């Protein structure tokens, strides 16, 4: 745990982090149109945070983002996922029913059948669940790496 990687790597990581994050959000949001989805996009964004962890020292990273932020991300993602599934029951549908599809509101535009270029505003609850799982995976994978990096440190101190 001496000094970190060189200044060139750190500046490159600063620039790349923004593009990785936006591309991850693109994958999450277009999960029902192009290859991708909640898990893949969440893993991409988590890899962006891991890039910051590896390019900087751990103290610098913990000065920008706290561990509690990622824990809250994980829990809120899980709650949003289950909540979306449970919200079908008061409306008179089954658990995990896609109750928003075809209603015309949020994500409810009617989709043309067959081969089409794809529209963002379709597919009912699937984009909401994509976002929920994306937030959960983002928090989960980031906090795993964060705890394991902390584990090396406490490993050396405990001797």
């Amino acid at each position, binding site marked *: 745990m001496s000094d970190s990687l060189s200044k060139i790597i750190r500046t490159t990581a600063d620039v790349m982090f923004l593009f990785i994050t936006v591309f991850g959000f693109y*994958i999450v949001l277009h999960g029902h149109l192009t*290859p*991708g*989805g909640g*898990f*893949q996009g969440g*893993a*991409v964004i*988590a*890899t962006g945070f*891991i*890039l910051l962890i*590896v390019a900087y020292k751990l103290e610098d990273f913990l000065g920008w983002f706290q561990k509690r932020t990622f824990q809250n991300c994980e829990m809120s993602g899980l709650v949003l996922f289950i909540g979306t599934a449970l919200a079908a029951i008061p409306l008179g549908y089954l658990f995990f029913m896609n109750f928003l599809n075809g209603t015309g509101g949020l994500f409810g535009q009617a989709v043309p059948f067959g081969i089409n270029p794809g529209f963002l505003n379709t597919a009912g609850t699937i984009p909401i669940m994509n976002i929920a799982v994306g937030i959960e995976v983002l928090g989960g*994978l980031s906090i*795993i*790496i964060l705890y*394991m*990096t902390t*584990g*090396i440190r406490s*490993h050396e101190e405990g001797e």
Partner: protein
Amino acid sequence: MIEIIHILVLIGILITAALIVWQKNLVAAAVTFAAFSFLLSIEFYILQAPDVAIAEAAVGAGISTAIYLIAIRATHDQEVT
């Protein structure tokens, strides 16, 4: 002609998988695991599974190697025999 690419990628998967088992240095094994993951992702791509290819890419390119190297750093990097 796509079959030749397919066969080449499969042979590459076999070579890297054997190399993972054969390497005595654990860092070299982790590096080879990254190459195995790359070739596995091309295989998924050829078998028309882009969702799985993206998942394998996102996991194998960053997170898996990171976890292995943190564990190797915390323990030791030569295999006991």
